[in-house]
């Protein structure tokens, strides 16, 4: 299963990269989202995979039933997901405003600030 998820992760990164290189701010954001999915899945996968068992302790016990899934990557990804959401919300709004103000969705039209 690791192999499969590794490939899915790679595909997410590849697709994210590809989308970011298109000439559209919209696709750029899609690419960013894919990239962040890729990162999340990567952490999840390299943290080790355990089928089915949540790291939740059953009532009346002190440790979860073995084998439990590693809770650390889960906590990290959870943080990353929420941060990713915040970033995405801002980025979307920014691009939206940029489109309204600059009248273009083409990142190639954004050269003014560099020259």
């Amino acid at each position: 299963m690791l192999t499969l998820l590794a490939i899915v992760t790679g595909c997410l990164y590849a697709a994210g990269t590809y989308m970011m290189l298109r000439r559209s701010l919209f696709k750029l954001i899609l690419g960013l989202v894919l990239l962040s999915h890729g990162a999340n899945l990567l952490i999840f996968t390299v943290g080790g995979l355990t089928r089915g068992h949540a790291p939740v302790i059953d009532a009346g016990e002190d440790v979860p039933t073995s084998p439990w899934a590693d809770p650390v990557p889960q906590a990290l990804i959870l943080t990353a997901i929420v941060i990713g959401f915040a970033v995405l919300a801002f980025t979307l709004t920014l691009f939206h405003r940029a489109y309204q103000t600059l009248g273009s969705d083409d990142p190639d039209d954004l050269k003014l600030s560099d020259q």
Partner: protein
Amino acid sequence: MNDVVLVLPLLIPLLTVALSLLAWRWIAFQRAVALIGAIALLGASVLLFQRVYSVGTIVTQAGAWQAPYGITLVADLFSAIMVVLAGIAGLMVVVFSLASVDKGREAFGYYPLVNALLLGVCGAFLTGDIFNLYVWFEVMLMSSFVLLALGGERPQLQGSIKYVTLNLVSSAIFLAAVGILYGLTGTLNMADLAIRLGESDRPVLVTAVGMLFLVAFGIKAAVFPLFFWLPASYHTPPGPVSALFAGLLTKVGVYALIRMFTLVFVQDNAYTHTLILALSGLTMLTGVLGAVAQQEFRRVLSFHIISQIGYMTMGLGLAGLVESTELATFALAGSIFYIIHHIIVKTNLFLVSTVAGKLCGMVELKRQGGLYLSQPLLAFLFLVPAMSLAGMPPLSGFFAKLSLIKAGLLAEQYLLVATALFVGLLTLFSMTKIWSEAFWKPLPEESPASRNPPNLSSKQMRILLFPIGMMALLTITIGFCAEPVFSVAMRAAEELLQRDGYIRAVMGEAQ
């Protein structure tokens, strides 16, 4: 061990953020809170520095969970220095903002954002946990995104898009690298990572992960060829925002590079640090050439940031390559000294550029002028940081450059030294370009300021010049007191290179 002084630099800005948000519509309150908070932050950072200076590295285990299990906050001398610098830059920028930021921005969270930025920066300096570092980076980045875009003017939006996109790429790489490190070692504590990576049976992979960190932090630090976001954006937001960015943000990247490549990734120095050295040279050169090509006050300064990042990483690269511990310490101390110098000088130059822009009504150097005659104090206050940046003795920049070049020569990296010297000359060139255009040259007829002179009240002017003057004074002071400052840098470098002290302080008896 439980040191309140260690957490104050986090609590103070966080509290100001929360209070400012609570008083969302009460701007006078936000201004007051921001000012008090900035003063308190500086005070706390000085206390922290004093403490670390006297008792050595201090550590607090957040939540009382013993390292490596909880999140460790740790201040060694390097961190403490950085926090003090953040405090200084923060206070100066807040004071400057009081007289220069428009009502609209103030009404939409300018002050809490500045404080959030400081929070992120301080957090990044103080954390001893790699994922927590990611979180503070995000705090810092998010605040910088918003500060950059706040106001939504055309160039701002254009610059923001590039800034945001490239920094998000950096974050994605950072996050992935953290995940891989966790997979490799099962830990997130940086000291623990240092131990475990040393024992790793997969050194190739460790180095490759190190490369991911190099790229992620290299983007934040604006190292060649990852710096594009910086010149695209830094000149677009209001002056104090640029100043804060210019002073602090890239330096957090440099800080992280230094931390990671002195503490964690030290297994394959011959490879990694040679790479860092090569990138340093290229960074210096491309940055300064970029500056030469610019015709706008803040754009020139922006490219110079890049160029000077090259100097900062140069010391790191040298420190990893030389045999002698003494020389390595010296080189790294050069980097640290350079950072100290740079943060103060660069922040100040951006503040000066803002005042110049306000007085001339334009940002292009061609359409500025006459400030030498009309604003002699400002002219002097420009000259101090500008000459310091160019490495003119006896200002801070001279000693910064001297130490690095000396280290480079001792390490026999002649090509790099030649580059550094050449870049120094070009820095002088572009500083004098600004001086000549904005200050010496008479105000051109077509400049808007010659038609309707700016109406800066003298009170406003005093508030604007106060931080500039303070920082110029600091630049001079660092020059004259280079010995104590440099010896602190030496001690910090020593601590960085002798990892055991840090590791022992963090891990306690658990090790």
